[in-house]
């Protein structure tokens, strides 16, 4: 039994990572109709940037009173402080480039209402290639360690290994996604965004600035991928090729959970993490990824709105 709990907890921790990867992808698809095959690279890129910025900390001469955030400080506070500050610095950069620039240069041009999705998908493939190869050449092919903002503490409640990082990622992920859900449902801006997503023409009639709402979506996505990078990189390490598997897992989790509900990505992520671990342990390690994939196929064929999504009216 404790084995089951152990691998389930670990699956949830990994699943939180998957959920973070999935939620931005789902949001873009749901709100802007943009299918972004470069999503994984959008996470890998900020991770590398934060690493570089974080290592640049000492030369920026930050004063000592900048607070240490998160976990237990080990040794000097400098590395952690570096990542936090790097994170704060990276957010506006991400919003500008991965949000605004991406939207304006690619999505607006390629995504016409009622038109083809394909050019944007291809362009995002090209973009993914660009980011990936740039990271490979510029940053090197070897993976680099990425400090966790939650520190390195480990505990063994009831004999089950639990790390501060696991718990931290889980908690933050749930909080972030619930916060996003609240924002979209309860705030006026959020509801306007949802309206703009469901029916742009009607929203315009109602006076909602659709263009701006879509821009907000991209901005939020940029923040989400940066947060995802911060939380994911300690486990996957900062690497040029992290994007590929992150993208795939984002697609799977988003579709299974239901991409038209933000919480769907959360549940989808957890589900994929759990299923992988369970099938890895009880069935076969070789096919641990197969069960989520099969589930994804089944979901698409028989319940395309996802397990927790809301069925949409199909208009012929």
């Amino acid at each position, binding site marked *: 039994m404790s084995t089951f709990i152990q691998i389930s907890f670990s699956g949830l921790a990994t699943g939180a990572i998957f959920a973070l990867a999935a939620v931005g992808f789902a949001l873009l698809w749901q709100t802007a109709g943009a*299918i972004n095959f470069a999503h994984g690279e959008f996470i890998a890129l900020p991770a590398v940037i934060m690493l570089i910025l974080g290592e640049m900390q000492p030369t920026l001469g930050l004063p000592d009173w900048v607070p240490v955030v998160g976990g237990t400080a080990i040794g000097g506070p400098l590395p952690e402080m570096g990542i936090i500050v790097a994170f704060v610095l990276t957010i506006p950069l991400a919003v500008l480039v991965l949000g605004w620039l991406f939207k304006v240069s690619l999505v607006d041009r390629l995504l016409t209402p*009622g038109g083809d999705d394909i050019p944007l998908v291809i362009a995002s493939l090209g973009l993914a290639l660009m980011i990936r190869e740039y990271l490979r050449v510029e940053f090197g092919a070897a993976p680099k360690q990425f400090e966790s903002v939650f520190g390195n503490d480990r505990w063994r409640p009831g004999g089950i290994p639990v790390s501060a990082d696991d718990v931290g990622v889980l908690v933050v992920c749930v909080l972030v996604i619930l916060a996003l859900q609240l924002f979209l449902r309860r705030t006026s801006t959020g509801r306007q965004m949802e309206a703009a997503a469901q029916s742009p023409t009607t929203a315009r009639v109602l006076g909602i600035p659709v263009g701006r709402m879509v821009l907000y979506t991209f901005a939020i996505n940029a923040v989400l991928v940066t947060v995802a990078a911060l939380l994911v990189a300690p486990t996957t390490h900062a690497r040029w090729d992290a994007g590929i598997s992150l993208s795939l897992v984002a697609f799977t989790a988003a579709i299974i959970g239901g991409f038209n509900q933000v919480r769907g990505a959360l549940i989808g992520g957890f589900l994929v993490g759990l299923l992988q671990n369970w099938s890895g342990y009880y069935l076969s390690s070789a096919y641990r990824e197969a069960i989520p994939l099969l589930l994804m196929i089944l979901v698409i064929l028989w319940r395309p709105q996802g397990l927790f999504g809301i069925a949409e009216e199909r208009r012929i």
Partner: protein
Amino acid sequence: MSATTSTGERLAHRRDAVAEIDRGSLSWPLAAAAVAAVATVVLLPVGRSEFAGIMWLWAAALVAVLGLNLLLPVESWNGIVVKWASLAGCVAFLAVFPVGRTNSTLVDLGLFVVFAIVCVGLNLTHGFAGKISLAQGAFLGIGAYVSVLLDTGREVAVAGFEGTLPDLPFLLAIAVAGLTCMVLSVLIGFPALRVQGPWLAFVTLAFNLLVYLVLNNEVGLTGGSRGLRTLRVDLVVFGVDLFETRNYYYFCLVFLLAATALVWWIVRSPWGRAFKALRDNPGRAASLGVDVRTYTLLAFSIGAGLAGVAGALYARLIEYIDPRGFYIGQSFDFFLATVVGGLGTMVGPFIGVSFITVLTDRLRFTGDYYRVWFGLFVVFMMLAAPRGVAGSFNQLRSWLRARREAAR
């Protein structure tokens, strides 16, 4: 966003596009065609070319022929002569070019031919029948492994079954590889082709990943991640020894010409018209009694079958296969090639495949970042020419024709 878009919206968009042509605002397709031409001319002399003079002549002839195509009325005798002459020229070029080339060049050319077969198939499935597929990489792999397993008399052990596989003649192994893919594709297509666009993409993507898992893990059958060495020894077809890369290249070329002819024939036939109807307006096609399911399944399976045949050829071309070569990245490449070349055009796959093989290689003179440049090229092509190179060329031609007629 639902899995289908409203028909009304799509029709409205189409009207807008036509109106744009009339307004003469065709800067982007023109830019794309210009880029393609410039890229051709710029890239030609790159490399240790003793044929530089001939390359320039070639470029000049190309420009001349393109210009003629644009300006001559389609139905005139001149137009028809130019058309068949350019076709004959191309075939002659592909046939004559290998003379005097080195082994590595021939392998590269062979790769172009093999991938072109895959994209011709994908073009049928996606370009003509409108069904996106990200599984061509998987079918390439299935074709490769099936043909190799049947052609070498290997001993296999899988799921409790042990035995020695038969050692079939090479041609038969290729045929079985293609047929296996056709059958498999019908099996998945049957449930999967009900869904539209992005959903079908994800289903085929998942299928590709699953196939990869099987190829990688069933060590007793496929050798798993250790790969299989597939040397071209003892391969004699109709008295021709295929060990020589040059001979093997011609062998693959025959398949490419056959595949192109097959797709050309299908498109010209009543099936082809049904495909066009399906692609342009599935709702209306269904209401007119076009058997949507059968036709799309057919297109999908032919596309997969061609990829399977290509896989069989591919395995012997590079003489080593492992599951990594059939991962989702390969499917992305084929998808990219077909779209950037021009969906729904006969020539699009060739252009697209030349981009993913030749262009990527040629770009290496830019140094370590050459793939970044290629990615940028892809992005630019989508911005400039969402219909692909060939599609934009057609748009350009239509525009010029409309202008000619308006001027009368």
